[in-house]
């Protein structure tokens, strides 16, 4: 009988449920657990932490999780693949070794490096990789002095290599999100670098599961049909050698897996579905065949891939000024009209003290903040939330904005409340700059110890 490889995902982003991975591990019946901690901006935060304290720069939450579940991981022989290494996988590895020592256990940890190119930017530009913005075509020079992080989405074969060398926990930095699931499939089935259909299949499996419960009832259009949201099960894929797989969840968990839940997630953050580019292959999402088997099982097969491109995508972060947002609740007769007046008063007061901004935004939550022009708002709601925001490169002006909200409660129209949590403070904006780099300029290193 064909070997079935079971890969689960217990974390869709940094800040996702801390209980989900524990539930997956204790529930058992899985071979590999993937844990995604990195969003585009996360690496920038980690570079800053590392600059202040060289022993940081990774997802500390992951170390806390391993501390909680290490005996179960070892007993059940579950191997974990995570991008928790951030910009300092060796430091994360050391922290995990300390945890293992506390549990009197010995674990083999694989670290993947080479994705962090912050220190190589000038060298790469000199070598003929302009790192221009993929969206706008702008030269990197326009933001070069404000870059805070630069990481390459490297391919998934480095994950497989770490597993081949016996790693029980694999720590990467910036690998592709679906790659966390594809890596163990390459390792277990021995898929090759030009097995485009198989690599595409593993990438689709990773794409379906990379956002955690978003394929098992989370963010589901017919939310009222989902049973036991509180105990929602995170996804497990059962993969065969030929790349076909079943999306499911552990028995007894809440949520649901059906044709809809999987289709919705297949389309999540999708551009051109026939040319989905990953570091490993190019996937054609219009090729796949989907079959709802019932009982929370959906089978996907016949996926077609095409040769990978000759460049990697680079995620560059840079400082782009400051922003702040604050809210007031406006109540009473004609609340909508009053809230618009309050916004006008606040912006006028700021203008009078010389604070004009590169951008401002006034939104009425409950009226038109998310769907302007689409849904008719209520004619005279009892209350609305006024949300004001501004953005500028001058931090002092953005901080000044934060001081102008509370006064209007006593020196403006009546019936304003809900000003809690203190003055809004200026937040640094870490903006995203997508670019490409030729693959031959990037070398990755895999260490297992």
């Amino acid at each position, binding site marked *: 009988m064909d070997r079935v490889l079971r890969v689960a995902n217990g974390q869709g982003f940094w800040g996702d449920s801390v209980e989900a991975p524990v539930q997956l591990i204790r529930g058992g019946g899985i071979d590999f657990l993937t844990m995604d901690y990195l969003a585009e901006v996360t690496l920038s935060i980690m570079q800053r932490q590392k600059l202040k304290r060289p022993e940081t720069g990774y997802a500390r939450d992951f170390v806390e999780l391993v501390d909680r579940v290490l005996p179960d991981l070892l007993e059940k022989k579950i191997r974990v693949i995570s991008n928790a290494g951030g910009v300092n996988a060796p430091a994360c590895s050391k922290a995990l070794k300390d945890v293992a020592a506390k549990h009197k256990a010995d674990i083999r940890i694989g670290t993947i490096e080479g994705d962090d190119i912050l220190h190589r930017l000038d060298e790469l530009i000199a070598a003929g990789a302009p790192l221009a913005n993929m969206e706008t075509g702008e030269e990197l020079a326009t933001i070069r002095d404000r870059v805070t992080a630069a990481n390459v989405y490297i391919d998934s074969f480095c994950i497989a290599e770490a597993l081949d060398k016996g790693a029980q926990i694999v720590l990467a930095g910036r690998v592709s999100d679906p790659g966390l699931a594809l890596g163990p499939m390459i390792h277990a089935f021995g898929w090759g670098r030009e097995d485009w259909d198989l690599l595409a299949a593993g990438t689709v499996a990773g794409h379906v599961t990379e956002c955690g419960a978003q394929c098992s009832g989370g963010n589901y259009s*017919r939310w009222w049909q989902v049973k036991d949201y509180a105990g929602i099960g995170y996804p497990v894929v059962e993969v065969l050698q030929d790349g076909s797989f079943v999306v499911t969840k552990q028995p007894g968990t809440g949520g649901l897996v059906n044709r809809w839940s999987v289709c919705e997630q297949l389309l999540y953050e999708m551009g051109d579905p026939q040319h989905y580019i990953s570091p490993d292959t190019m996937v054609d999402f219009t090729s796949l065949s989907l079959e709802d088997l019932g009982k929370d099982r959906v089978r996907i097969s016949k996926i077609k891939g095409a040769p990978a491109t000759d460049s990697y995508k680079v995620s560059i972060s840079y400082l782009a000024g400051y*922003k702040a947002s604050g809210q007031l609740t406006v109540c009473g007769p004609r609340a909508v009209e009053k809230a618009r007046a309050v916004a006008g008063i606040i912006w006028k007061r700021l203008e009078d003290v010389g604070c004009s901004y590169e951008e401002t935004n006034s939104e009425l939550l409950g009226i038109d903040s998310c769907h302007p022009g689409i849904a008719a708002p209520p004619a005279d709601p009892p209350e609305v939330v006024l949300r004001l925001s501004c953005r500028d490169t001058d931090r002092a002006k953005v901080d000044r904005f934060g001081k102008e909200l509370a006064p209007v409660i006593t020196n403006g129209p009546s019936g304003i409340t809900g000003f809690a949590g203190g003055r809004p403070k200026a937040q640094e904006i870490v903006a995203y700059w997508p670019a490409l780099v030729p693959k031959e300029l990037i070398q990755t290193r895999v260490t297992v110890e």
Partner: protein
Amino acid sequence: MKIRLEEIAHARSGDKGPHSNVGIVFGHEDVYKWALAVLTEERVKKHFEAIALGKVIRYELPNLWALNFMLGDSLGGGGSLSLKNDAQGKTHGQALLRMEVDLPDELAEHRLEL
């Protein structure tokens, strides 16, 4: 009969840089084929005219009875630059499900449970 798209489809949305994408999945192949003619780029652009300031592009996925719409420049800059409450377009799928359409009577049986 006049219905909202929520009666015949599921949708999900998210961000792609400064743009958002809305995937919509229909419950039956015949409904998908009808929608191909009805849910044009122009119609969707008109629906989102106060949100999508750029171009709307449609992709077809006949294998999933689904359409994928890219809503150009719909996030106020996107990512951390955006001042919008829904900076990532997480709710744009729900906005599409509010669209009112005239469903032919012969497709009425393919409506989904509300």
